[in-house]
């Protein structure tokens, strides 16, 4: 186990040094204001990721824990290592990248011990993800409904007819206005926001416990982005989904998350409960992100809230 960056805020889920056999102790309770003591569904402990070809470390130690119904946000620019961290969690690191230190536990299982078959069973059913460009994850020549139904048939073993029924239910769950119509449409007939909803429907088709949203709203219009964020918040409340929200925009993460990690050049420069990070930033880079909003964003015209109001 590796020690953590001294820059990271104390009082957060920095449990890298704790024995792996007893997760879900004090540190988790401390970070969540509700004080839940549920076992973490996802525990990332001191994860470092290296490029084996150039032999360089790209991610220098990331740790966080996620309990059901909670949300962790990762903020950073492109190249900060946030996407690699997500991919490591999903076991889909690009070729010649590997987790060189630390461990990742999904629902109590260390992913290093998983066989490819176990991975297949885990993905979708326990951990799932949506990414930035929804259109590229769907087949343009197959109706979107059929693609959702296929996932359901494979993952849940349902019959064709039941799968179709369930797919329409899912499209309804992601608040598409006319689920029956969307079921029979092709990707080119849907807008970016609708496609992202369809992809979220696919992601939650097998009732996962964890959903990773990696820049899932970046390419969308502001009003559509808000719709998707609202949808994620609702899924979290209704289904007890644990979310990992990754974005380059601190404000997007601030909307949803209980805990925030600020990453820069592979390093977690700041980590802590959202209100702490927003109101008492310690690292210069976090201050820059906040200052950008204060000077140039809408915040210029909005009265600053006191820390109590956000929590």
């Amino acid at each position: 186990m590796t020690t953590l960056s001294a820059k990271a805020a104390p009082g957060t889920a920095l449990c890298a040094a704790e024995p792996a056999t007893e997760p879900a102790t004090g540190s988790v309770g401390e970070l969540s204001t509700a004080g839940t003591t549920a076992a973490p569904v996802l525990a990332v402990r001191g994860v470092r990721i290296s490029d084996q070809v150039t032999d360089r470390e790209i991610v220098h130690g990331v740790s966080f824990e996620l309990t059901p119904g909670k949300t962790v946000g990762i903020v950073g620019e492109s190249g900060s290592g946030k996407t690699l961290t997500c991919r490591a969690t999903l076991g889909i690191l690009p070729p010649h990248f590997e987790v060189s230190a630390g461990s990742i536990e999904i629902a109590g299982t260390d992913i290093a011990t998983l066989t490819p078959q176990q991975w297949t069973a885990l993905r979708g059913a326990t951990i799932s993800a949506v990414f930035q460009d929804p259109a590229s994850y769907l087949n343009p020549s197959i109706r979107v409904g059929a693609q959702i139904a296929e996932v359901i048939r494979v993952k849940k073993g349902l019959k064709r007819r039941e799968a179709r029924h369930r797919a329409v239910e899912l499209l309804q769950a992601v608040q598409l206005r006319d689920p029956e119509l969307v079921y029979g449409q092709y990707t080119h007939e849907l807008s970016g926001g609708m496609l992202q909803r369809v992809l979220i429907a696919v992601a939650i088709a097998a009732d996962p416990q964890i959903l990773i949203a990696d820049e899932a709203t970046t390419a969308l219009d502001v009003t559509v982005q808000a719709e998707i964020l609202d949808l994620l918040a609702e899924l979290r409340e209704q289904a007890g989904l644990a979310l990992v929200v990754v974005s380059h925009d601190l404000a997007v993460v601030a909307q949803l998350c209980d805990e925030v990690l600020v990453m820069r050049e592979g390093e977690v420069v700041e980590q802590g409960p959202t209100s702490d990070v927003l109101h008492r930033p310690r690292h210069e880079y976090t201050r820059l992100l906040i200052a950008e909003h204060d000077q140039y964003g809408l915040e210029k015209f909005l009265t600053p809230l006191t820390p109590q109001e956000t929590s």
Partner: protein
Amino acid sequence: MTMVRRVLSLTSGRIAVVILTLIALLAVLGPLLAPQNPLATSDNTLAAASGSHWLGTDYLGRDTFSRLLDGSRVSVLGSLEVAVMALVVGAIPGILSVYLGRTFEWLTLRLADTLVALPFLLFAVAVIALLGNGITQAMLVTGALVSPLFYRVARAATLAVARSPYVEAALVAGASTGWIVRRHVWVKVLPPIAVALAQTIGVGFIIVSSLTFLGIGVQPPAPTWGGLLASDLGYLSYQPWAPLAPAVLIMITVWASNLLADAIRDVSGEAGRAFVNTRKARANRLGKPDPVSTGGA
């Protein structure tokens, strides 16, 4: 010109340029160097190589070496003419088709389609019947027939840049169409055209020779490389090695042209810029210690 310098920085580019220069020299000086009258027949037919006939004689007793040298001018100039003709009637309308309005675009597009659809021989015979037989007419015909390739290549390359933001930026700054073509479009269109041009020079040889074979263009007693190859092939059983000399000359020229085309393609466009950058980077690294990038944003 940076493009020439870039091409010459490649080994393959240098080889191609050297060979093509030699062949150009041959075309200019060839007829003057011929040791004997290339049209003079003798009784010494189908002779083997000897001191007086370096490459032997053909079926009419003419000196093959002299005929090869004499024919080089018309062969090389012929294929060059084809290429230039295609360039003028193909590439230029191709670029202009994007700028000169819809009528011109429609007309040239249909014309290009028509030329592709025309049977080559029928068209050649028709033009010869109209304009009379001769090398110029033959080149005109072949040039016109190859031009749709140039038209399409030039048009595609122009279309790719015509709507790009930097062209619009120039437009907003008050640039005329001429300025935009000279400063932005030409550079982008040149590499693909150069590739097409180099290929056409190769194809030109084959077309000139096949036309000669049919009695179109260069008339039979006058020698060309293609014509020599064709007539030598007829006497393969008497002189199996005879077609070798014209064939090797044609082959080397076509190969050098293609080599040049490849070199141009390698140093132009995105690939070319990457190529220059890596070279620059390598030069920098040799000069000073390698600054290790820390990655990140």
